[in-house]
């Protein structure tokens, strides 16, 4: 089985098209360990937007719970970490994962990285992009149980107008600026969460827990290395 997967992956690297595999093939450790509870840490913000971290935190508990996991109350966890002087997840990235079991009773820890949460302007248009990566670490073994990343780009280029020449161009630029400024990142982050969490094996509370190994659609290139 594994040999076939390796052959297929090698061929795909030559052909260069997207390979999708099943949840069971992509994340065997999840099915072996079956973590029940997940500690979500504050996101690591690699974007240029300082608000991203706070706003992103409001979006993750719901979809993760719907995947069937117990999620420790994020607002309280954040306060507890702050009281311990931990303002940035970067400080505890290399911490022995078993500490999270010791201090919180968590079976797994979710690290999220906000890779992009920003606006781009180009010659006559603009877009807004949200790109987030997820890594679920076992507090038992320290190994990666599940990982994935997803991104969403929304084109906020101003609409075509009938004003010709330079005036028309300026109008379009202004429209782009307004659309881009108004674009709310949080709904985009929610969409990214939903997209990415379709690949996580169902947790204990999900009605189909333990039956989804053969569900396909996991894009190999989106699994974090």
């Amino acid at each position: 089985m594994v040999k076939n997967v390796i052959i297929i992956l090698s061929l795909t690297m030559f052909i260069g098209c997207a390979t999708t595999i099943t949840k069971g093939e992509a994340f065997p450790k999840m099915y072996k360990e079956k973590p029940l509870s997940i500690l979500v840490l504050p996101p690591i913000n690699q974007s240029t937007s300082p608000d991203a971290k706070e706003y992103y935190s409001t979006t993750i508990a719901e979809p993760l719970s719907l995947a069937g996991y117990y999620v420790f109350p994020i607002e309280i966890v954040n306060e507890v970490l702050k009281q311990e002087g931990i303002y940035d997840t970067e400080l505890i990235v290399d911490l022995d994962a078993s500490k999270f079991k010791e201090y919180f009773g968590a079976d797994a820890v979710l690290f999220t990285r906000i890779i992009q949460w920003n606006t781009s302007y180009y010659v006559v248009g603009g877009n807004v992009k949200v790109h987030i990566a997820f890594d679920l670490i076992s507090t038992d073994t320290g190994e990666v149980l599940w990982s994935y990343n997803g991104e969403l780009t929304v084109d906020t280029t101003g609409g075509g107008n009938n004003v010709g020449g330079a005036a028309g161009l300026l109008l379009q630029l202004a429209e782009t600026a307004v659309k881009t400024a108004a674009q709310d990142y949080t709904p985009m982050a929610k969409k990214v969460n939903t997209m990415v969490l379709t690949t996580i094996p169902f947790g204990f509370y999900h009605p189909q827990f333990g039956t989804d190994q053969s569900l396909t659609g996991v894009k190999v290139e989106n699994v974090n290395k």
Partner: protein
Amino acid sequence: MKNTTIILLFIFLIVGCTPQPMYYWGDYSNSLYKVKKDATPETLDKHKIELQEIIKKSNERGLRVPPGINAELGYIFLLQAQYDQAMIYLNKEKSTYPESTKFIDDLLQNLKEGEENDG
């Protein structure tokens, strides 16, 4: 009469077969977002009401209260020094999700110490 009965039975079947979502989260993330954007007594109070609404609707629909919701409400009561209410909701989190026991017990321990210091 017979046709109406058949149609009604059919409708009940379809409605019965429609899976209910696992949890009712209400307007949680928007409510919390407003607190993050602008942390005032008003936004916090609205969020507290939203948490209570989620708990109420979950109970009405026979659903488990979503993970963390009881605890978050308990924590807000804790911050407002309403220790009795805090204990009720923190304990509800424990009884709904036994895997939260260590986390909640540690919080309750801090609550006890806080109360002793205040008293």
